[in-house]
């Protein structure tokens, strides 16, 4: 069954590592729906969040190949239900469109969006939420004249309580038996 999966990857911060990771997707013909990279709660450890649409069997193998990379600490995959996630969207809307009497204010309120800036020719609105939510606001803003739209990749934290630091500790124990 094809579903959306969130893949969380914890890595060292080295040049070129993103390339090493993405070629694993490419080789298996798995399209990347979204991607976000930032530092994690552990200093020096970077967190990649990929979203893919695929079958669990494929994703499981993909994640094993990613974790095999020397500079990757750990890699996991989750269903939507196992994560809490958000995306952020920015909408640049023409001010000319606002004058036409539609209820712009109610739209902003209902969507829990907020206005970031007002310029002479446009306003910029921000909304965070799931893709369906940011997409819905886009749809409803279209009549006003959307000049630009940008949506971030997914950021996600997981519901399972095991922490990265405890995984790192387990890895250390495996490594100690070698030395």
């Amino acid at each position: 069954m094809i579903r959306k999966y969130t893949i969380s990857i914890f890595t060292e911060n080295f040049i070129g590592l993103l390339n090493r990771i993405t070629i694993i997707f490419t080789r298996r013909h798995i399209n990347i729906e979204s991607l976000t990279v930032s530092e994690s709660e552990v200093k020096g450890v970077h967190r990649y969040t990929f979203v893919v649409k695929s079958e669990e069997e494929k994703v499981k193998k993909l994640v094993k190949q990613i974790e095999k990379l020397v500079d990757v600490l750990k890699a996991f995959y989750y269903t939507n239900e196992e994560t809490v996630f958000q995306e952020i969207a920015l909408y640049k809307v023409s001010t000319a469109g606002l004058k036409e009497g539609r209820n712009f204010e109610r739209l902003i309120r209902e969507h829990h969006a907020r206005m970031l800036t007002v310029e002479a020719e446009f306003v910029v609105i921000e909304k965070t939420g799931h893709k369906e939510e940011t997409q819905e606001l886009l749809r409803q803003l279209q009549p006003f004249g959307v000049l630009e739209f940008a949506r971030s990749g997914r950021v996600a934290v997981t519901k399972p309580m095991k922490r990265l630091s405890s995984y790192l500790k387990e890895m250390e124990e495996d490594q100690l038996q070698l030395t």
Partner: protein
Amino acid sequence: MQTLTKPVGLELEQAQMMTGAEAVIQSLLAEGVDTVFGYPGGAIMPVYDALYDYQHFLNHVLVRHEQGGIHAAQGYARVSGKVGVCFATSGPGATNLITGLADAMIDSNPLVCITGQVASHLLGTDAFQETDVVGVSMPVTKWNCQVTKAEDIPAAIAKAFFIARSGRPGPVLIDITKDAQFGKLAFHYEPCQLVRSYVPKVKLDLEQVQRAAELINNAKKPFLLVGQGVIISQAERELLQLVEKAGIPFAWTLMGLSAVPTDHELGMGMLGMHGNYAPNVKTNECDILIAVGMRFDDRVTGDVSKYAKQAKVIHIEIDPAEIDKNIKADVPVVADAKEALQALVEMVHPNDHSAWVNEFHEKRAIEVEKVITQDLFPQKEGLTMGEVIRRVSDHLNGDGILVTDVGQHQMVASRYFQFKKSRSNVTSGGLGTMGFALPAALGAKLGSPDREVVAVIGDGGFQMTLQELATIFQTQAAVKIIILNNNFLGMVRQWQQLFFEKRYSFTEMTNPDFIKISEAYGIPATKVTLREDLDKGVEALLSSDGPFLLEVVVEKEDNVFPMVPSGASVSDIRLE
């Protein structure tokens, strides 16, 4: 801190100032490297200049093409168990390594390749001989990195060696910019023992081993597959202890060849597309399938949906990504083969499965009658590859190292060469790289100088890297080269015959005079076309002190059987 060697009795003091180029050499010496295969060029000239002072400590072999260099390093690594090392310059030098990297990656050969790179201020400017070699080699290296500062060189090389040889081995590439080679550093070498993000092998899970032992103890028809992992982890003895104690018949993959003596009474031959009849058929009849250090390559499994479906599968493998990749394991044991087998031997009960073993022998008899007799004792006029291989093998009496290229001769040699010692088979298994054997044989000879090294090569593959005859001549490495010449790309022709209605599209070769070529390179050679001259030819080959080339003209359109047709089940193996 290890003792380092400095030319002519100079003791290297700690933290001595030197150039990055010299640090490359010192780092290699600190890792115990004695042989490097390489080819100089602009961006690696500082390293070669430093090498000039170290010629008595480090044997540099000047190959004739970088691909030859890396295949030689592979051959060296495969027979010695040590890390193979090669040098190449930037741009085309580095890209010429790619085939060898891919080959080493898929066959798990430990390599450290050092490439020169343009000066760091020129990176990204399309400078002369600049290629993004780190980017290009990413999918075909276990790890790679670029070094742009002299002081980072020793640590990068230490990490490279640790990664190349630990866990599931593989090729590592270090790209060093020219300014880093010229730069100065206070040299200090610390071998790498730990990379935080990298777990080469996990702790053995004894519960899983116990589950495996229970399956084996209750098995009626157990069958064990020997992969290269047995050789890499030096588990040959433990493997024999296990099969002998529990009475388990076994077979080997192409890469597992020579891990156990070919004539072992429980040894049932080779698996796979051109393997033996019995082990392929019996794979689909066993009740417990124990795979050790192998990855269920498609050439071994055929159609996976019809592979050992009746059996419970125990998969002992160091690389967790191989578990369930192609074949689902009922009992996965993620471990070094040696550790796992040591534990397993203790837990299995002594057993005997002679009725089951006899079933293999019955199948074997069919193969002997329908295939092997015709291959080894042909009635027809033309020579067969099989009789040539067996003649050579008999002369060597199980003591030689066999290096094969890719194609029909490879399969025939793997089927009929007799092995007594481990690390005696060098071939391009996963990648199927034509042109592999000649340079790999040179590397094998340098890695194992006391043993006879025989390279068996087809007429097609030989012409892909024949320039390495010059390297063999220059080093006088006593490589014994056999060209099995059928004036065809035989394996492709066989497929064209069987699956493409004999449409022999571009597989027939009008070949040069191989004897003249060999002699032009200073290597004595002889050609055999008649059966009665074969013994004399083989004797000339093997009695020669230096390198020698024997060309044997074999039957033009022979096929290799048995054969599991592509996409068929292993039990649908064809005998003719």
